[in-house]
């Protein structure tokens, strides 16, 4: 009996040793960490639970009292400059007409809204409102809890299923806020020690995700595939040389860049990320519902298999005219975020009525995408064939397929690098937006926090179109904006010397495009990427938009 017991014990001991050795050979870090954890548990059980800083106190009580007495903190808020004091919210909207095309601002009816991302005209859509109100009557307004704790109301679950079905992925996950979606999804996977290669033009929510991940961030020039290849190959070569354990590697891009309006060169990115074994994350807030034959975004646009992406994210505040964000991918990837996506776990879920509205919007698009996308395509072509595209003294950024356009001043980069230069540019666009509002058009000047951006974007005027707009109204409004801009350029502050001086404006409000020097449109066409280039993505000309991104931190990690 005893012999048997000893035998068994010995056998178990041997197995344990073998297991440890096996584990050690396979993954020595694992064993080391486990051992450290075991020691740590012992330490926690034996030690007291909390120790204040044990730094030896060198100062006496009275000395500290004196120091406390002397210390004068800075004010909580820095002294505001005149600009900050005058900073206003956007114009106050009193009413939105069905379709979201016209709004009432300060008692002024019928203002044409060219300022919001309501690309498919679903804002104020009757079906969406109907669905939202039905949900309101059944579920009330707020969900009063995070998804984990009785906040997973049916409309949330249905919306997740609908998105997954529509996109052809295994699963999707709904965040309560668009901004937090990509900002939570990236750090759920990328950690300290990992590496993320990102496009220099990614918008702020993406940058937030990068920052929170604490991974090493490498940048490539905006949409420049040669530069991406260089960054990837240099990193991989250096990592191979260094040896050691493989880390997680990601490429992060946007489908349509919010800051530049360009479409990413997805097929090339996929080719490169596969070649160098990176995983791909795409932010699709401005491409989902816009690009592709049925609006499924940049993957459909290029005919790329959606499973090439680790996941995609999109805000629901643009095409789907609701509030929230969606992240879609494989079940493994989505499941992981249900425990690790901070904006998902630690935030209350969206009011169910918002999700119902988004679901109805999605159903409308999924059931018959053509009417929406055809109408949008017509408006997009009106936008990009308008004079705004070739206005002397300005550069229009972005692809001709994208339902918005960023107008920036054609000034040297130095004007964007300085505070004064940026402020002067912002003032120009604010004045244009104000004048447009007087003329019954709502457009928005971009608002950035320059000190938080990795790379300084150039102040711009953003003009967005919607499928629900009347084509003639739109064309007229675009002509009006062009006139206002032209007018504004006549009195630029000396700080903003244009790259190419504009000839004197004729007294009559003639279209000034005719008066432009012949060389200018060609130069601009190259700057913007030619229309042919946008339609034929494999043949993208070198995009010069990155010159509009002034690098402030050359040594950023």
């Amino acid at each position: 009996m005893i012999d048997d017991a000893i035998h068994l014990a010995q056998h178990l001991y041997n197995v344990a040793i073998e297991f440890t050795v096996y584990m050690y050979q396979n993954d020595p870090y694992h064993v080391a960490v486990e051992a450290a954890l075991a020691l740590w548990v012992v330490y926690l059980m034996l030690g007291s639970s909390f120790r204040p800083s044990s730094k030896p106190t060198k100062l006496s009580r009275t000395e500290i009292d004196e120091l406390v007495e002397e210390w004068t903190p800075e004010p909580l808020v820095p002294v505001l400059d005149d600009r900050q004091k005058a900073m206003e919210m956007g114009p106050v909207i009193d009413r939105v007409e069905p379709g979201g095309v016209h709004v009432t601002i300060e008692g002024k009816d019928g203002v044409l809204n060219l300022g919001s991302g309501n690309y498919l005209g679903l804002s104020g859509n009757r079906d969406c409102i109907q669905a939202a109100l039905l949900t309101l009557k059944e579920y009330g307004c707020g969900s009063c809890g995070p998804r984990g704790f009785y906040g997973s109301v049916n409309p949330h679950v249905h919306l997740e299923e609908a998105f997954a079905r529509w996109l052809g992925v295994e699963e999707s996950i709904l965040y309560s806020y668009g901004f937090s979606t990509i900002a939570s999804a990236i750090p759920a996977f990328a950690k300290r020690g990992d590496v993320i290669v990102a496009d220099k033009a990614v918008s702020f929510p993406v940058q937030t995700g990068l920052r929170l991940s604490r991974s090493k961030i490498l940048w490539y020039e905006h949409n420049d595939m040669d530069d991406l290849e260089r960054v990837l190959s240099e990193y991989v070569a250096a990592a191979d040389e260094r040896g050691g354990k493989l880390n997680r590697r990601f490429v992060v891009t946007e489908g349509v860049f919010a800051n530049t309006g360009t479409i990413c060169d997805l097929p090339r990115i996929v080719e490169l990320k596969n070649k160098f074994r990176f995983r791909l994350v795409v932010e699709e807030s401005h491409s989902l519902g816009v690009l592709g034959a049925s609006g499924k975004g940049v993957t459909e646009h290029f005919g790329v298999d959606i499973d090439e992406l680790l996941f995609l994210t999109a805000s629901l505040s643009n095409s789907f005219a609701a509030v929230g964000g969606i992240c879609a991918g494989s079940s493994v990837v989505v499941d992981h975020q249900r425990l690790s996506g901070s904006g998902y776990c630690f935030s209350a879920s969206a009011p169910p009525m918002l999700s119902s509205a988004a679901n109805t919007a999605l159903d409308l698009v999924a059931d018959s995408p053509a009417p929406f996308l055809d109408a949008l395509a017509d408006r997009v072509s009106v936008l990009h064939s308008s004079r705004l595209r070739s206005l002397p003294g300005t550069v229009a950024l972005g692809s001709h397929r994208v339902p918005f356009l960023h107008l920036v001043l054609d000034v040297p980069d130095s004007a964007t690098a300085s505070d004064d230069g940026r402020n002067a540019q912002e003032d120009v666009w604010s004045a244009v937006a104000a004048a447009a509002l007087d003329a019954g058009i709502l457009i928005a000047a971009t608002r950035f926090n320059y000190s938080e951006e990795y790379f300084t974007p150039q102040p711009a005027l953003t003009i967005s179109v919607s499928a629900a707009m009347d084509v003639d109204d739109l064309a007229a409004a675009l002509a009006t904006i062009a006139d206002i801009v032209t007018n504004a350029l006549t009195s630029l502050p000396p700080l903003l010397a244009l790259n190419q001086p504009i000839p004197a404006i004729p007294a009559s409000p003639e279209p000034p495009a005719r008066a432009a020097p012949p060389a200018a449109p060609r130069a601009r066409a190259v700057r913007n990427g030619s229309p042919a280039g946008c339609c034929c993505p494999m043949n993208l000309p070198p995009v010069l938009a990155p010159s509009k991104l002034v690098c402030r931190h050359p040594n950023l990690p």
Partner: protein
Amino acid sequence: MTMDHPQPPLYVAILTYLSYGVLIVFGHLRDFSRAGLTALGLRWLLRATSKDTRRPVGNEPGYCELLSDFDNFYTRRLYHRIQDCWNRPVCSAPGAYITLPERLSDDYNLSFKLTGKTHRCLNLGSYNYLGFAENHGPTIAAVTDATLTYGISSCGSRATAGNTRDHVELENLVARFLGKPAAMIFGMGFATNSTVIPALCGKGSLVISDTLNHSSIVQGCRVSGAKIKTFRHNDPDDLEAVLRHAIAYGQPRTHRPWKKIIVIVEGIYSMEGEICRLAEIVAVKKKYKAYLYLDEAHSIGALGATGRGVCEHTGVSPDDVDILMGTFTKSFGGVGGYIASTPELIQYLKSVCIGHLYANAMAPPVARMVQTTMKIIMGEDGTNDGQRRIHQLRDNANYFRRRLVEMGFVIYGDNDSPVVPLMLYYPCAIAAFSREALKRSLAVVVVGYPATPIIESRSRFCLSAAHTREDIDKALDAISDVGDVMGLKFNA
């Protein structure tokens, strides 16, 4: 107010560690056998017997594992076994009662299928403190009206083209409600903390944060670049010690004086149910010239004679708190967050705060919802409905807490707090308590590590003004019953 938590008996602590030991050993045994089968070339056997039908992602050859086995151990081997206790789908308003679709798993909790049956439960899980999570009444009419006026979303940020009349009016109302000169609203409570804190402090500033502050505060501090120190949970003496040390020795290495020091605390700690010792903390912060940032996510509406939060509850003037932050998700039945402070600070946020400049505006109908409920709380609807709700919540919370203590459960938190944690300790009790409660038609929230310290797993009840005394008695009977079955009445 409680200073130190009641401690569990020693045998409970030992058994709790032992339980984790068993779970971890079995988890490793399963990993070991899986690794063994793979090593023996019997992967097909694993695949044939596995119920996991998900597309295998994240372990492609030549890539680093997306979710490393080690990081993922807790999720795979502990959480997955009991994940039926969370993310339960809901098919009703989260009022006093909540309807849960029944769901079953045939793959060991990897996925769930709805059976089509539903189960009506008493709701002790939602943050519906004042009972505004209801699908009838004046709030519904108001939200309907706003939806017809604006549609669902303004599709833009408030700084550009998404600003509506209701946003502006809500801001004015929040300032008036809180007795602050100015306020600003944000579309998400989490994003309020995570974007406002970085706007207020940066390199050279010091944030002194309560050890149990919410994840959004932690994230905001991390993004800000300020140095972060913590002080012992809800302990003004420790705060004073940390402040003295910080001012005396200045910044690390350079020993330059700190530019500014911001103390961040919460009104009610959502996992502890404890109320902030605000009066003492204000005295300390004044003495040391620090600034105070108070997160009232759980306390606004729920504390104070007229629902003005922890300031009113503790008799502190709102002027003594530099920044009041709160959310609309809980007491107001909406979504989003606010900051109330001086006009200069609000004006400053308008020009720099990320959550304002880049993020989409709050849905206008939700802004109307919050206005409506806030006016009811303030009595501006011409009824005493708001006062009635505040009293009902207080009565419910105190009665419920007192009875649980009498029964012999270990209960954390303070009187008047609508958050009542009941200690479970054992990891195996987490799922058992939730499932047993569900059998008795109680929807409860259970939490364990990492949301709590490893041996302090608990069930967290949230009381509501929507509960009647009969509801509460019914809940108490059921909890008592579960407590007897599971042996949770440690103080009996």
